């Protein structure tokens, strides 16, 4: 790392903790009256529990849900697994079919692969070339034995939104439980579970300015989807998630949701404008392309490819000055190319040539302009070393 901190354009991987949240959590960590186990009956236990219930309300309000419908977890991976494995396993022997897509985050993808190992039949929907899932295909794939439909709200590589309203209408009609992974949309665009009509919705704190290691699963109350817990013992969180609640984490999550709610009026438009400014600034690195349609999207993500570029080299070129992800998922394992971009029909070389740039609360226009300059310079230097013909072939 250099002395100047790198420009952070990886908000899709995680958002820096909002300093106001850090302050709230630090207070909480240091407050002697909040140290007890919230499950304990004594006065300090009740004090900790009261703070948690306040946070539960803040988290619920972000998605317009009643507080009793919020189950606290350790993150979106746990929430998604509790929803997907939990709903399918609870459906048991009768309903053994699940519908999902090839562009889910690994949490949803790998949970469904596990269901296949457990004997479930999984329908894997593909997006169109622009990255969009067609609600019509969801309707067409539902069967009498379908236990669950699980589709993400905003994709973590393209930011593209699935039409949740349309999908849940279909699922309601057919009496199928619908789960959506909203880790990339919660706190970034307005979400109203009542209006959406989803049965289960997963999200987490560290994508909206809150702490890592805190997540939530919204569980509709009427009708209440049956869920088998992932872990057992103690029966906290209405039996769905056992284990001592981490007060400071939940308090931080709640405060982050309150701040995010307050910012939802202006922030999405500001971020969208910055994203397009970045896209314009990168045109100097043409030939290039955009992975996935620009809209409808959670506005923070720009996924771009540069002809003739190899992703790992471009990342090293930018290392220490710009923090971004390669064409691949949350954890930029360069090993195998992004399965999401593959599902969009991109060649492996084109995926290798792609970057995921993701903006967030702290991002400024100055950072965007500087980042665009750095990327354009890097692309030019690497292209200068290309063999003849490579620029045309690596697309």
């Amino acid at each position: 790392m250099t002395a100047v901190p790198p420009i952070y354009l990886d908000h899709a991987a995680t958002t820096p903790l909002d300093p106001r949240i850090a302050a709230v959590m630090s207070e909480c960590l240091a407050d002697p009256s909040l140290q007890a186990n919230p499950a304990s009956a004594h006065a300090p236990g009740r004090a900790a529990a009261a703070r948690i219930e306040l946070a539960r309300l803040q988290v619920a309000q972000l998605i317009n849900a009643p507080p009793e419908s919020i189950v606290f977890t350790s993150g979106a991976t746990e929430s998604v697994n509790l929803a997907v494995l939990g709903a399918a396993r609870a459906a048991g022997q009768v309903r053994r079919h699940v519908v999902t897509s090839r562009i889910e985050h690994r949490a949803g993808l790998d949970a469904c692969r596990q269901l296949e190992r457990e004997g479930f039949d999984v329908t894997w929907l593909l997006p169109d070339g622009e990255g969009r899932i067609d609600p019509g295909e969801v309707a067409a794939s539902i069967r009498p034995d379908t236990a669950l439909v699980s589709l993400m709200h905003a994709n973590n590589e393209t930011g593209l939104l699935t039409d949740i309203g349309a999908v849940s209408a279909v699922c309601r009609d057919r009496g199928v439980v619908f789960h959506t992974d909203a880790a990339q949309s919660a706190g970034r665009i307005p979400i109203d579970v009542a209006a959406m009509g989803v049965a289960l919705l997963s999200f987490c704190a560290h994508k909206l300015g809150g702490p890592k290691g805190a997540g939530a699963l919204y569980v509709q109350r009427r009708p209440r989807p049956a869920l088998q817990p992932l872990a057992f013992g103690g029966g906290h969180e209405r039996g769905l998630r056992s284990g001592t609640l981490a007060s400071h984490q939940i308090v931080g999550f709640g405060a982050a949701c309150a701040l995010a709610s307050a910012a939802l009026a202006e922030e999405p438009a500001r971020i969208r404008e910055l994203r397009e400014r970045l896209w314009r600034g990168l045109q100097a690195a043409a030939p290039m392309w955009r992975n996935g349609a620009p809209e409808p999207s959670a506005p923070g993500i720009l996924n771009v490819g540069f002809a003739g570029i190899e992703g790992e080299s471009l990342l090293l070129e930018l290392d220490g000055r710009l923090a971004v992800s390669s064409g691949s998922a949350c954890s930029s394992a360069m090993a195998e190319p992004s399965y999401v971009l593959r599902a969009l029909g991109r060649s492996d070389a084109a995926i290798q040539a792609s970057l995921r740039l993701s903006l967030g609360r702290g991002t400024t226009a100055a950072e965007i302009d500087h980042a665009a300059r750095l990327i354009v310079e890097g692309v030019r230097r690497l292209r200068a070393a290309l063999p003849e013909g490579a620029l045309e072939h690596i697309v």
Partner: protein
Amino acid sequence: MTPETVRYSARVLDLFARLPGADVLPAGVGALVTGEAIALDRGAWIRFDARIEGERIVDCVFRAWGCPHTLAAAAWVTQELRARVVQDCASLDALRLARELDAPAEKMGRLLVVEDALTALLERARAVQ
């Protein structure tokens, strides 16, 4: 990905930063030979151009598309070849490259593409002697 797998040796970092030999051959005397290997699926495309006088390689440059290890390997090879006798270059294989750059195992596939390009170059070089 674990941070380890993205750490690069000082030599890789230096060669990647400078890319010495990423160039076109300057004019000069001697026979021009080229060796190229393309494996988009493995994420590497390397081309070497060299000028041969008698049994010596008097100049050598490269062009490449690939990861930092691939580019560093190609650059390192061009430095090594200069002023060498063609026969003495046989030892410059992927294993040697991996050692010189201490590249992780998963990079062998790409270094083999560099080796392929080099082998092609040396064959041509022997042919024009």
